[in-house]
């Protein structure tokens, strides 16, 4: 086993990104994500990496995408309002298939909202924030240790599937300190983007391998010349208005995530085998739920917990399987019912779904969730 550290979630996320091979950070300070930028500013020069504080969130993600095009694994981090600003260029990264990792340390909203209090109100923005259709990969950490390992996983997914990957953390996880065990570097699996192997004049920049729908990506400055654009483009990367080419591009963009859905989706379960009631929660809320489930079990109630680790793609198939066995599903969230809609969609009416909303800046106390469980048992 590796070393032990006592880190904050944001710090662990930065260190995990570095362990994944991230060597560029483009940022703009915003609470409660700022410690990620601060840590990267401190650590990147030591590794011959590059940190740049840009003039705003828009240029911060622009620089991050540029760095990735130039061959670097690149990260940007922000919170709600900054995440809104980044959406425009995030869309370009989906369209042009540029791997980057974007962290949103969620706070309450809308607008400036609650800068120092946790929220989960950006869940739908993560899925549909930018205009246009695209597949989304978004993770939600529930512990400091997971911030570290998830940063590695997010970079691996971004590199493998050649697109932006989101980490939807929250103020509670970002600012909490916990003991974590840092894996040895040799125990960490690192994925890197596929590079072209053909000669420059044979290189067709968006010609995808039929095996995985992912085109190899050359870096600017490595001898290959190609065109990056946010316009819908053909295999050559050139803008197109041809219906067949447009359709080919769009279906591939969606398909490359659909076909690897089972490899991407991650979730966690606790005491679900004989459960009659299921609590579904993620991020910091999952910690309260987990406590509540333990306390309920100690009182003899048959309760389990299902935690989506990837918010997108949502673990719907896996949840549906459990929904066939349980009577009730309780969904506590720090928003007015964003993910509960996905839960309802996934379970197809097979069990009763009860939302639990909290948007007053507080966190769910395990007692509140236990109370709700007890009501359902009665």
């Amino acid at each position, binding site marked *: 086993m590796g070393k032990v550290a006592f880190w904050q979630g944001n710090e662990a996320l930065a260190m995990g990104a570095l362990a994944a091979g991230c060597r560029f950070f483009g940022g703009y300070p915003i609470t409660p994500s700022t410690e990620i930028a601060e840590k990267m500013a401190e650590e990147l020069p*030591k590794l011959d990496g590059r940190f*740049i504080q840009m003039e705003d969130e828009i*240029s911060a993600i*622009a620089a991050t995408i*540029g760095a990735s095009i130039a061959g670097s694994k690149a990260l940007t981090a922000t919170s709600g309002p900054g995440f809104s600003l980044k959406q425009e260029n995030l869309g370009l990264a989906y369209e042009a298939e540029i791997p980057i990792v974007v962290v949103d340390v969620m706070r309450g909203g809308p607008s400036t909202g609650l800068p120092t209090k946790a929220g989960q109100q950006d869940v739908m923005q993560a899925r549909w924030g930018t205009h246009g259709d695209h597949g989304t990969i978004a993770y939600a950490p529930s512990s400091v240790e997971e911030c570290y390992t998830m940063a590695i996983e997010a970079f691996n997914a971004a590199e493998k599937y050649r697109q932006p990957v989101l980490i939807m953390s929250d103020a509670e996880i970002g600012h909490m300190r916990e003991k974590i065990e840092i894996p040895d570097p040799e125990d960490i699996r690192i994925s890197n983007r596929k590079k072209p192997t053909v000669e*420059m004049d044979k290189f067709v920049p968006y010609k995808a391998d039929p095996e995985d729908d992912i085109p190899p990506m050359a870096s600017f400055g*490595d001898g290959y010349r*190609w065109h990056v654009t946010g316009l819908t483009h053909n295999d050559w990367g*050139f803008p197109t208005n041809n219906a067949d080419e447009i359709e080919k591009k769009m279906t591939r963009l969606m398909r490359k995530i659909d076909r690897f859905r089972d490899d991407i989706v991650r979730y966690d379960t606790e005491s679900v085998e004989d459960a009659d009631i299921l609590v579904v929660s993620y991020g910091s809320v999952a910690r309260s739920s987990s406590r509540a489930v333990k306390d309920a079990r100690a009182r003899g109630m048959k309760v389990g917990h299902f935690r989506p680790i990837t918010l997108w793609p949502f673990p719907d198939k896996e949840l549906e399987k459990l929904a066939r066995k349980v009577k009730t599903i309780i969904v506590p969230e720090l928003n007015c019912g964003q993910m509960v809609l996905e839960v309802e969609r996934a379970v197809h009416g097979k069990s009763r779904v009860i939302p639990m909303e909290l948007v007053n800046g507080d966190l769910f106390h395990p007692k509140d969730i236990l109370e709700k469980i007890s009501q359902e048992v009665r």
Partner: protein
Amino acid sequence: MPSKEVYSWLRTRFFPHMWCPGCGHGIIMHSLFRALVDLKKDQSNTVIASGIGCSSRMPGYIDACTLHTTHGRSLGFATGIKMVKPEMTVIDVMGDGDCSAIGGNHFIHACRRNIDITAIVMNNNIYGMTGGQASPTTPGGALATTAPYGAVDPTFDLCRLAEGAGATFVARSTIANPKQAEKYIVDGIKHKGFSVVEIISSCHTQFGRKNNRRTPISNIEFLKSATVTKEKAKDMSPEELYGKIVVGEFVNKTAAEYTEQYLAMTKKVREG
């Protein structure tokens, strides 16, 4: 027709281009091609970035490492590339709205940062691609679809804006003097630091149609008659200078370049 020595830089696969026949932007592209050939730049180590608008389609026609980004944001993308690969030549082509409206914040900060990128601003005083709306450089009183009774907004002097924000090389020319435009592009690329080369272009289709400059040639004639050199302008009164285009090299100074400073800092950190 482009001169033969620039053929190797043409991405003929991408042609025909989408500019209107007689568009001023073609002259600027030719000047840029000639500058790149003059400087013997390596196509695989040259980046041409752009935002959105007529100007922004230029990188597609150039056989180099090219990117067409979002409206006004190209300097951010170019900055990320330059930070990772400082050895690459990075050129950012932008339109007047791209540079000074939506991208105004990015433009002034690139000037302040003094990162070694050459910004070529193709100023045709109008939003051409979206159909002729007013831009921050549309002259006062000029007609545009969003200024049907004449533009009320004061216009931006992009060179003075760049100078004030700290750009270390600033020059202006027009498409009526392509050799001068080419020279400033060469000087801007050679210059270590952030360079701004503003080239006054023309849009006879969208601007000229409403403002009595309906043909490409009438625009060239206008630019020739309105151009005043920096030297000559020194002795002219504000009234005499009204509506004139002052051309010349306005700033050429040495200052620490951003990536060099950053790399020197990281070296110091690593060596303890």
